[in-house]
């Protein structure tokens, strides 16, 4: 796929429609929502969302980690990830966890730069 032309806009419109449908469909299928709830609570599909998020996290973090060179880069990265994970578990808020992680990463990066 390239960044221009009908193919690009077709993909964008299809992605927008699919994204909206996945969010709206459960409300349209209110009569069958019991079925969806059962799927959410009692089958392998319950693991799909978190597993997808974990797969994406691995796909985003691993290439970053592989590009790090030396302790001056990987220590701040590891510290930032640890702070994010800790904040997410303790505070239960993804936004605050991201801010905490980014702040810790920034401080450690600055310290490593001055060391």
């Amino acid at each position, binding site marked *: 796929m390239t960044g221009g032309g009908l193919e690009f806009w077709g993909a*964008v419109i299809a992605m927008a429609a699919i994204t909206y449908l996945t969010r709206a469909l459960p409300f349209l299928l209110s009569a069958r929502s019991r079925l969806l709830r059962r799927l959410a609570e009692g089958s392998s599909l319950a693991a799909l969302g978190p597993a997808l998020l974990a797969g994406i996290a691995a796909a985003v973090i691993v290439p970053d980690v592989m590009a790090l060179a030396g302790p001056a880069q990987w220590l701040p990265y590891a510290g930032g990830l640890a702070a994010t994970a800790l904040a997410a578990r303790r505070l239960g808020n*993804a*936004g*605050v966890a991201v801010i905490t992680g980014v702040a810790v990463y920034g401080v450690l990066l600055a310290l490593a730069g001055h060391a």
Partner: protein
Amino acid sequence: MSRPSAAPPHLALPGGAGLAGLKACLPVMIGYFPVAVTFGIAGLATGLSPLQVVLISVLVYAGASQFLLLASIKAGTPWLWVVALCSLLNARHLLYGPLLSRFLPEPLRARLKIAFLLTDEVFATAFSRIEHVAPAHRNRWMTLLGLGAWLTWIAGTAVGVYAGDGLERHFPMLSQVMRFALPALFLALVCQSATRALRWPIVAALGVGAAFAASGHTTLAILAGAVAGCACHRPRRAP
């Protein structure tokens, strides 16, 4: 979990509910902004025009899918494959509606409007707080929560597109630090979803995903991680 018998006074008024919705949205906004700026910068770097990048944020409004789109343009992935992956990525949203449904206003029209704004973070925030909002004002509260997040996402993308280059040049370290928001966001979402029952599926998804990503197959890493996670999950059987 204890449930409040009545909504706090500031949530009992329509205006208060809207303000409370925006207030609840604040952490989401702070988390979204740097990620959206990063998306704006990355979109331009992929060769898209500023308008194209901003319109992707306006229309698609799904962070993971949007970054997948950029990666696919870079890699020359066929668009049908991209759309299929996007469907898989968004399949988790199917589960949000049934969980949130009992708290939302009855009219379908209101629900369909809210559905557009229902991202992972908006769902998580709503699911943990909406029961404290008076039922009559939940539509307003939810709409403001969702709109705040959506507009922040668009504004952040626009800042990345139109000022990202200057930010990169004048504050190179700030740009580097802001790029960390994306891995941090996904890690935070994984940590939040890691309940006791889902611990092993998540560990399996992370391990398999990491192995594929380390071998250079980042798109496959997402799929393989999801398959591994589902395969490891043992649903509880009803007695």
